[in-house]
């Protein structure tokens, strides 16, 4: 038996069925990325093209390593949600569900590979 009234169960959910969670998560991650992306562009950009030893030395330092790891985690989460939005607009039915799952797997896999690699270089 449910103790919640029907009104209470749907309150605040809106047509998206989960309230404004997706919108809010997009907004928060985008604000984080306004800070992270310029930091990443100038740290990563300055070392891209350098020899192997220089790259390892550079990413053994805490600041560039933490910026890179955070950018990949927040960036891929932002990509995951944004790409899902685009898929929901253009693709429908089982293709839509399959693509959304594929994008999620790809995003978390890329995140994991990136964070593992940076940690391995840094430590």
């Amino acid at each position: 038996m449910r103790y919640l009234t029907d009104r209470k169960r749907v309150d605040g959910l809106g047509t998206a069925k989960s309230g404004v969670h997706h919108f809010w998560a997009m907004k928060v991650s985008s604000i984080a990325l306004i800070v992270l992306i310029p930091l990443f562009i100038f740290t990563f950009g300055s070392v891209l093209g350098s020899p192997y030893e220089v790259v390892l030395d550079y990413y053994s330092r805490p600041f560039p390593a933490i910026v890179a790891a955070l950018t990949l985690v927040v960036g891929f989460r932002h990509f995951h949600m944004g790409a899902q939005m685009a898929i929901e607009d253009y693709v429908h039915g089982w293709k839509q569900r399959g693509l959304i799952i594929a994008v999620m797997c790809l995003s978390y896999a890329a995140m994991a590979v990136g964070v593992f690699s940076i940690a391995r270089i840094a430590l």
Partner: protein
Amino acid sequence: MADVNRGNRPLSPFMLGKYYRFQLNSVTSILNRITGNAMLVAALLIVWWFLAAATAPEYFAVVDWIVTSFIGDLVMFLSLWGIWYHLLAGIRHLIWENGVGLDMSTSDKMGWAAIIGSVLLTLITVAVI
């Protein structure tokens, strides 16, 4: 009236160009989505580059050669513009979400600011790096 064409109507954004004339607002909107999704290529290349750097010098040499090759450079350069554009266009959305700047003249100004600003930031970044 019978809806004869149901399920077969052209839908946005595939209306752009063909049925709707291009306007600043529709172009900046679709560019935001295109840049956001297209950056996946550069992002995966960067992750691959980190993986190679964490693995072995020989592996790094191969991936670094690909990332800094002509095609790699082109992908990185276009993505650099893409990310600056996406960042500025994103700020425009964050402003809009407060119910501010939604009138035509302000959103047009912000649209041009995103386009011109992203080109300038790209050139500045290339010059600094």
